[in-house]
């Protein structure tokens, strides 16, 4: 077993692919096709390398991955005929003979799910050779990885993606399916590691040399990776985040990154940050910007609530016009930090507390008979005053989606956001001891209306309601009252820095 582990590590640490047979090498030297043993693909890089970045992380035992897993277990010999194969982009390649390619950087652009499944099977098999898989714990599994692979940082980095939860998904699947468990138990590890998968290789440097458009290796590799994944079920978030990572970091999130440094890391692709650090997804930072109206007409603000694709499109256009919109981009960069801080410091905790308050309040109302004109009246009557039942009925109406409420709050307060004269920092111009009360009052009124609208019965869907002008008008009176009582002044700051796209 030790010798196999050593062999796997040696392959993983090398920058070389060794084919089972002669491969096809196109005359223009841009393409290579052939077949590789599984052991060759286990630790191929796939993200943020010079050869590009694959937008998809391993997403666990979803439907397609389950089929790949069963196919790997039941038809290992046939696998290369059943599977369309993997695609890889390589830079700085050197082809010495028709069996071996040496390279500088690698990006596994297609087949990442398959690779992780093969890797999980091999790891479980190695583990099972020494210890029983029954009752395997997270600690045991992590110790196993560390004790066998800790001498290679490159391999360990990739193994961090094989979290215990993902491994136990596969294990539970085997436990529930005797047929595949038998396949797994009877499998010969060496012959599995030498089973073949078809591979296409895009050689980035020759491809690049003949392109008219000026692109670098990373852009070409990522372009290929995104296109390879386009027909698959890849999240729009991951495609956008992957493609614009550099520009987002340089322009849109510049202030955020500078201020937060490593305290809060931005996640450009969902699930990419697995370290135990505070993280924020790009969409969480981009969405509230829309509510300020700095990029769109008023009616579009409402329409874009809780949306994904149109928001990415908007920012895509903004980045394309960055030369003309540099002032707006700078403002957005500051805004995203301020709005994030407001969300984390005030909105999320206050909403959480308010939800508990409302749950108690509406439970009391239900018992008092104050919810007779709501759509849950019948359910409440038939609960016979049972508090637990009543809570179950009420809970979905009191629950909230922060992405529904936060944009309305931002829309409400956007005119009092301003730039501090001295530092150029964007601020919410209220002292720290008064700010919680300010947001508390506004949140309560917006949230209450949100619940009451749901309880009255929505004429359309909740999504349509939260994208309506009517919803965005909630809290106007409270805002005016608060503005006067705290002597706050509105400014044209957002308007002056606007760049209309949508």
């Amino acid at each position: 077993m030790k010798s196999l582990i050593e062999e796997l590590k040696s392959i993983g640490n090398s920058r070389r692919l060794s084919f089972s047979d002669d491969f096809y090498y196109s005359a223009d030297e841009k393409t290579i096709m052939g077949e590789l043993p599984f052991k060759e693909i286990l630790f191929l890089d796939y993200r943020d390398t010079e050869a590009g970045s694959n937008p998809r992380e391993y997403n666990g035992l979803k439907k397609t991955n389950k089929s790949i897993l069963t196919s790997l277990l039941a038809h290992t010999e046939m696998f290369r005929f059943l599977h369309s194969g993997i695609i890889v982009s390589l830079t700085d390649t050197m082809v010495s003979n028709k069996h071996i390619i040496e390279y500088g950087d690698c990006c596994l652009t297609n087949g990442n799910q398959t690779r992780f499944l093969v890797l999980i099977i091999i790891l479980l098999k190695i583990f099972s050779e020494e210890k029983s898989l029954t009752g395997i714990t997270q600690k045991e599994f992590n110790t196993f990885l560390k004790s066998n692979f800790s001498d290679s940082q490159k391999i360990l980095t990739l193994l961090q993606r094989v979290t215990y939860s993902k491994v136990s998904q596969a294990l539970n699947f085997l436990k529930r399916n005797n047929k595949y468990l038998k396949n797994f138990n009877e499998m010969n590890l060496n012959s599995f590691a030498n089973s073949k998968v078809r591979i296409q290789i895009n050689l980035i440097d020759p491809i690049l040399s003949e392109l008219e458009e000026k692109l670098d290796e990373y852009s070409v590799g990522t372009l290929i990776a995104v296109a390879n994944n386009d027909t698959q079920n890849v999240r729009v978030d991951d495609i956008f985040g992957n493609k614009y990572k550099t520009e987002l970091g340089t322009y849109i999130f510049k202030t955020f990154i500078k201020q937060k440094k490593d305290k809060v890391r931005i996640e450009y692709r969902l699930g990419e940050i697995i370290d135990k650090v505070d993280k924020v997804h790009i969409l969480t930072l981009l969405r509230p910007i829309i509510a300020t109206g700095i990029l769109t007409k008023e009616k579009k603000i409402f329409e874009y609530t809780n949306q994904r694709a149109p928001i990415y499109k908007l920012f895509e256009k903004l980045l394309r016009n960055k030369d003309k919109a540099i002032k707006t981009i700078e403002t957005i960069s500051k805004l995203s930090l301020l709005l994030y801080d407001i969300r984390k410091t005030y909105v999320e905790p206050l909403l959480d507390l308010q939800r508990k308050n409302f749950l108690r309040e509406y439970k009391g109302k239900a018992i008092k008979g104050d919810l007779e004109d709501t759509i849950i009246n019948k359910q409440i009557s038939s609960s016979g005053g049972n508090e637990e039942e009543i809570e179950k009925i009420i809970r979905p109406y009191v629950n909230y989606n922060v992405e529904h409420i936060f944009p309305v709050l931002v829309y409400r307060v956007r005119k009092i956001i301003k730039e501090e004269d001295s530092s150029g920092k964007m601020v919410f111009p209220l002292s720290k001891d008064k700010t919680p009360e300010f947001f508390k009052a506004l949140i309560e009124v917006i949230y209450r209306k949100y619940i009451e609208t749901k309880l009255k019965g929505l004429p359309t869907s909740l999504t349509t309601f939260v994208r309506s002008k009517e919803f965005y008008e909630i809290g106007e009176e409270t805002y005016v009252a608060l503005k006067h009582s705290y002597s706050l002044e509105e400014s044209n700051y957002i308007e002056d820095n606007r760049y209309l796209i949508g």
Partner: protein
Amino acid sequence: MKIARVLEKYERFENNIEDLIRYAQEIIADLPYERKIPSKQKQMLLESLLLRACALWESFIERELIVSINLDPSQLITKFDLPEKTNPNIRLTRAIVFSDSFRDFHDIDRSMSFFKEVIVDKLNPFKKITRIQKEKIIFAYKIRNYLAHYSEFSKIKLFRAYQREPYKYRIFLEPGKFLLKQKGRHFEELVNNFKMASIQMRTIFK
């Protein structure tokens, strides 16, 4: 006393309880703009707030007992063998009720059987308290008694209650620790129960 005024008192009590819960929850939540408070201090605070909630409850039911009797004193007159024509006001009712012996309202079962003797059935709000609410009140008072005395007897009583459904604890927990569990869920449940009992009680006037 008019029903509207009676209901106002209920509301005041419910608001007082709600204030206690909100205050506790803000402290428990470790709000980012507030100073973080160590768990030990939070536990002490929750214990004090539970004692306060019990005190509010006792003063509330004492008042409601008198008010309910006063709405129709016929049962009181029978119980205390008073002249039939007696028409006591609130102060007199209180004097009669508390004249014969010391009364506290720590034991909800004992209290309720007394209430049944002195309040006419159709105006007895206490009979509206549900079985589950009563059980929670009994449990809250086990904590209250332990906190008030720290006696071995009260500790054993509380431990036995911990061991039963729904908690099923095997070891004894100091009340503060118990109340703080799950971001103060036990505290909220027990204290809000006083409010829910009040809401249930006032349905007698519907």
